[in-house]
């Protein structure tokens, strides 16, 4: 049983999920910051 590739796949999937979520947080933060600066300009 070549189980090592499954181990790496599981760990890589875990970090991919977490990084995607962190990426979504960063994206939402940037969008809000832009909206806030637009509101301040008005």
């Amino acid at each position: 049983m070549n189980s090592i590739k499954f181990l790496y796949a599981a760990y890589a999937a875990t970090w991919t999920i977490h990084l995607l979520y962190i990426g979504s947080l960063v994206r939402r933060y940037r969008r809000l910051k832009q909206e806030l600066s637009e509101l301040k300009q008005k």
Partner: protein
Amino acid sequence: MKRLFPILAMLTALMLVYALYQALVVAPTERTMGDVQRIFYYHVPSAWTAFLLFFVNLVASVGYLVKRNPKVDALALVSAEVGVVFCTVVLVTGPIWARPVWGIWWTWDVRLTSTLVLWLIYVSYLLLRRFSDSAQAPVLAAVLAVFGALDIPLVYFSIWFFRTQHPQPVIGGGGSIDPRMWRVLLINWMAFLCFALLMGWSRYRLESMRREVEEAQALESLLGDDRGPSAEIRNPKVAPNRSGQ
């Protein structure tokens, strides 16, 4: 608080690296499953963290139904969202472990199915929060969260109540575990808890900011209305000079 965040982020990153080293190098290799058993050090702490976050969501939802405090509502939303992230990790790493050990990716047994249902309940909760414009959405979501939380004990205790293919739980399940494995498991759980706290904190700040922006936009549109035609009727001084004089 702002100074504490980078310190916590640095500590969490160090803990995660240390936990990864413990899981891949220090933990003993399981005799029958081999290296694939090390998935356990990510799968189980992620499940425990998800359960804890869903429990926080339950407490915050009940708190919101009682007090109607928007900060408690924000905590409920944040805990559900981060909980779904950890529950997704559980649902992805489980089948990756099952394929070499059981020979199949998935089976519709009670533990696996109830975990999938739990994930679907909290995804529904997030969709309700995301797409409902109703002022009642936080209340409806809180009620959904209270009923959804009933699935948490079902997931955990399903192994005792039903015949299932899933291994026995580490705590109170009658199975034995090497003390070195226990240590590595707890290190990984601590690291994931800090990581969850960090993500929850970031998400809470983001949610507070979103609510501030929404309030500012509402205020801005109100002020905009005050400068509009209806405002001219109420207060002729704000009427624009259409004649150009």
